[in-house]
């Protein structure tokens, strides 16, 4: 296989007024244009008392702008054949939009107006807060989401990464019009914006559209990242999120992984692929293929500006939860203690190198890689040198990354289940358990 065939040109990068940056990836394969307006800060900038503010403030941009009320904005977006959503993570919040190419000009005009001249009506903020709280309540129906939220807030307790981007009912209620206006004035400024445009737009037109988007915004300054490195609380802990009538459990195991800057980051990614990153991984073989205990079993090493979580996920039936949890911990201990074998590493390296073609097969995907590079402050060659980085990983470096990064003594197990059915067996399933607690599923 020729690697050269898989390498693609990186998106064009332009400096705009006031310190804003534009990333452009023209492609005429489909008559669609993707537009991303990303802020260089995200939910980690929220205060603990106002968690959810970044997301609320950016969602408020479509709730009224100069000459248009919320309903008119929504109607205009649809009529142009467009859609837009707000995406929030600890390090960035932004608008992700797509439009039929023939309507890109009026759509950019609309987005620019929403950015430049939002009206932030008080009644719309109150309505959005009620909507957001209703969404938080509704999310309690999804056991996987309940487990993920519990893992995030407990693993990163006291750290900005522990705040849910959507907030809690209490923190959403606390957000005021002044908070939204302050966020807008501080962060929706040219120096804090990265504009991404991909798709059916010509290379000479795209920079003009990007400039049009940010015209009239205050220059401002880029947000400063004060997020500290997270620390893992010592000991093995079990958190059971109690929900009635569960025939099945959601099990998450979590500890700290790496940041994108760590020298052993790619080694950990490769080792993780061996453990739980593919359909033939150790986890899938042992939990699904051999025992049929769960429809899925996987692990992942998340990436951000600071060390992020390494997590394992599986969802066995209630009667299999304890043996499944015990097996997962045993497999994890073996992975950390004995490392990975050369044959396993060679297989996943081939997988990661060859599947790279699917990470860059559309203009929108290439744009998102370029955006991640900027927003997560990743090394410049994180994506462009991905194939070489993966090829450079050895069985020894992969094993070393696991041994030094994954601390199985400091491990958090989160289980969503009916406590009366499984609590005692689960306690017994975790060797060296230091602490076990039960919380109701409506906690957040």
């Amino acid at each position, binding site marked *: 296989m020729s690697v050269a065939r898989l390498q693609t040109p990186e998106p064009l990068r332009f400096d705009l007024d006031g310190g804003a940056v534009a990333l452009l990836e023209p492609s005429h394969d489909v008559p669609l244009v993707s537009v991303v307006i990303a802020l260089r800060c995200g939910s980690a900038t929220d205060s603990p008392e106002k968690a959810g503010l970044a997301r609320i403030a950016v969602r408020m941009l479509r709730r009224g702008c100069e000459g248009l009320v919320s309903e008119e904005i929504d109607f205009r977006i649809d009529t142009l054949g467009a859609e837009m959503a707000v995406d929030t993570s600890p390090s960035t919040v932004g608008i992700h939009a797509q439009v*039929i190419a023939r309507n890109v000009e009026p759509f950019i005009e609309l987005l620019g107006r929403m950015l430049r001249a939002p009206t932030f009506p008080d009644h719309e903020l109150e309505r959005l807060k009620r909507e957001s709280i209703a969404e938080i309540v509704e999310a309690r*129906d999804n056991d996987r989401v309940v487990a993920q939220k519990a893992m995030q807030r407990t693993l990163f307790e006291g750290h900005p990464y522990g705040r849910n981007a959507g907030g809690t009912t209490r923190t959403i209620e606390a957000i005021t019009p002044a908070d939204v206006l302050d966020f807008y004035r501080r962060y929706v400024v040219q120096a804090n914006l990265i504009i991404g445009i991909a798709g059916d737009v010509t290379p000479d037109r795209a920079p003009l559209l990007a400039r049009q988007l940010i015209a009239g915004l205050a220059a401002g300054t880029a947000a400063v990242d004060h997020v500290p490195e997270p620390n893992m609380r010592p000991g093995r802990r079990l958190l059971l999120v109690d929900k*009635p*009538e569960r*025939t*099945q459990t959601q099990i998450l195991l979590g500890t700290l992984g790496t940041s994108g800057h760590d020298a052993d980051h790619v080694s950990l990614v490769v080792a993780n692929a061996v453990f739980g990153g593919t359909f033939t991984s150790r986890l899938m073989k042992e939990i699904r293929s051999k025992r049929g205990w769960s429809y899925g079993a996987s692990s992942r090493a998340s990436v951000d500006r600071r060390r992020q979580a390494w997590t394992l996920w599986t969802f*066995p039936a209630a009667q299999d939860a304890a043996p499944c949890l015990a097996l997962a911990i045993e497999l994890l201990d073996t992975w950390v203690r004995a490392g990975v074998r050369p044959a396993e590493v060679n297989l996943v390296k081939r997988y990661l190198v060859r599947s790279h073609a699917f990470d860059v097969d559309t203009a929108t995907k290439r744009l998102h890689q370029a955006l991640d590079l900027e927003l997560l402050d990743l090394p410049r060659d994180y994506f462009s040198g991905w194939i070489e980085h993966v090829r450079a990983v050895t069985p020894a470096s992969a094993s070393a990354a696991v041994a030094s990064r994954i601390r199985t003594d400091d491990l958090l197990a989160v289980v969503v289940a009916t406590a009366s059915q499984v609590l005692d067996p689960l306690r017994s399933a975790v060797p060296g358990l230091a602490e076990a607690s039960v919380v109701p599923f*409506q906690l957040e």
Partner: protein
Amino acid sequence: MEKRARQRDPAAGRRAWAAQVNLGTAEGARLSYEGAHAFGVEMIHRWRLGNGLTVLVLIDGVAPVVAYHTWFNVGSRHERPGKTGLAHLFEHLMFGETENLAAGIFDRKLEESGAESNAATWVDWTYYHELLPADRVRLAVTLEAERMHRLVLRDAQIASEKEVVANERRYRVEDDVEGLANELLYKTAFEAHPYRWPTIGWMADIEAFTPEDCVKFYRTYYAPSNATVVVVGQVRERDLLLAIRDAYGIIPTQTVPAEDILPEPQQTVERRLEIRKPTASEKLLVAFKGPAFGDVDHAAMTVLSEVLFGGRASRLYRSLVVERELATDLRGWVSTFRDPGLFECWATARSTHSALEILPVFEDAFARVRADVVADEELARAKSRLELGSLQQLETASGKAEQIGFFEIVLGDPAHAFRRVESYRRTTASDLRRVARRYLVDTARTVLRVVPDASAAPAQAAQ
């Protein structure tokens, strides 16, 4: 003298090539060219092997990747009571051992090549898909041909996979309020047609399957004449076809039994159901009997659904989420099934409100579209959203292959995605009122309400 450009006839060229490569070839391996279908500015070429296998090829040079899909004309509609979920279980078993590949090797070979693979089963079809680097397409050809006729079904593997499927059912249905409500909706709305049972099957049926059931199903439906291979990507068509001929041509022709499906009798009385579950808020499902996907009314019903439910500016979103604040989530969907299905209307009530408050708002909106024509700007809005959605399906090789395979297996027209958009464009406000009057009939609706079960309160927080 003016030279006239020589016109190339792609069909003639392909037929001549097929005749050439068929010389001395066994009957089942003979390639026939059956014509081309315009797919936007591209062309899908239709081929058939002597054993009945249909092959649809779209050369797409956008990226050095290839999507390889195998669609089988078998889904849960082909099952019978007591054996529900067999098509889906079988989809799982197809990733197992074959005569030439030990258990686990199928997936490992794909992963070594960087491929992504998966499968899906629904009421009318089952399909298997791989996405590979373009230079690895032969691997997909070899593996898919192998499992089409050399699958090995062992008792232990069937037992293990039944456990996996039971767990999938717990995940998607038993512990998922939405999944459970949807299953009950179809069970209540249909009395005769196989759409009344879930594709994943009833738990008791999953647990009771025998190895003999699985072998019989495989021999009945996994035949080349019951399959369509769809290939989209950066491939050389002739090399691909020769590889397909060599790999699949040895599979014997097989006759698939004729469908034996009872049509659903007309519903003349409203059906109601209420269930209690440990959920945070009430849910409301209202379903009317809808048109088959191939029915001329389907496009108009889809546009009508978009007017009512599509996006924040839709009528019911404005009314229920924004203005009255009774609901958090709303969806409308016209089932895309071969036979007449449902027009499903879903609402999640806010925790302080009841589904019974939402139902009259639904009814009022349905009455309005039966009585009046929708405004031009509402129609334009709905059409634009549908056009956007259609284009988004075509962004990747996998997306194109899925569209081609789906429309081929359900409608027999692999390029129908583009005709579909044209149908939306032609739809008029009068069409919407006509289909509203035809399908939004109260006596032909099923209403399901999910109520939070207050008795199932969780334990208090405790250390």
